[in-house]
């Protein structure tokens, strides 16, 4: 599908653009991805209003997470989350076995050091979506072997 590839290419160009300032500095290990995360946050925040328009009111937090795993993920990545785990105390782990931004890179450990760049946007996307549903959270990602990816959501309770 043409519209899918447009999104993927735009995403990778945003990453390249955001990395531009840190290329000049010699510390090649450290890259600043907060801009990418923020772009994701803003997009997630706005898209949520649309996606939940026809949806009945969410019962609780778990219900909201299920929505993220099914409808939200399908809308953006054309597939559902493969595995959702929670400790029922505000920590959720979402596992995607074939994360779309990583599927084209490798089937193993090659390019593994660059993988975090391509999950920052999605972390922001989840965080923004949840923020609009009044759930403040910290979202981190973990890539052990491409193309599978785990997103950890820590809900901040006040």
């Amino acid at each position, binding site marked *: 599908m043409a519209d899918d590839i447009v999104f993927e290419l735009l995403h990778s160009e945003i990453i390249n653009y955001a990395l531009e300032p840190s290329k000049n500095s010699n510390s090649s290990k450290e890259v600043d991805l907060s801009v990418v995360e923020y772009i994701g946050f803003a997009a997630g925040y706005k898209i949520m209003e649309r996606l*939940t328009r026809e949806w009945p009111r969410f019962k609780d937090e778990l219900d909201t997470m299920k929505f993220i795993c099914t409808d939200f993920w399908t809308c953006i990545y054309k597939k559902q989350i493969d595995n959702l785990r929670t400790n029922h105390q505000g920590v959720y782990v979402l596992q995607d076995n074939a994360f779309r931004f990583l599927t084209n890179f490798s089937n193993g450990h090659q390019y593994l050091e660059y993988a975090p760049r391509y999950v920052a946007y999605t972390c922001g996307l989840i965080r923004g979506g949840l923020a*609009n*549903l009044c759930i403040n959270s910290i979202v981190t990602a973990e890539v052990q072997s491409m193309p599978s990816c785990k997103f950890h959501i820590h809900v901040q309770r006040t």
Partner: protein
Amino acid sequence: MAVCVAVIGKDNSPLYIGGIGNDTSTDNELSRQWLVHTALDALEERLATTNANNASASANAARTDLRDLYLGLLYSTDTHKIYGYVTNTKIKLVLVTSSTSPSGSNIRDAEVRTALRRLHALYADAICNPFHLPGDQIISQKFDKQVKSLMLNNV
């Protein structure tokens, strides 16, 4: 005939209040705000009972109804009726009808429901405007125009 609609944010701050009509008592900003805010307590109450009902696992027929975004008639005064709608993102949409005007006194619930659903669609479009920051007042003239025509035509 709707005389006023309002969009209230997550923290109960007004994002947009618009009104039309020749009804002089509502033709100024202050009375509009007052009308809309009288309904907010009733709205919160309605939401709280929704959550309580869901927490207790009493499976009854009303439960599916309570999960509806449209909350129905919230409050009525001698001259006005106030209807509410709360989105999943905790944005409150309030619609006020005048019961003194002939078209407003016998308004049907289904009409209000469709009007509020359409208002929600307009709001979602306005939010997606990149110049609008979340939590800010909606100053889009396009949104204003669309809402005014919604008030005139639909209800």
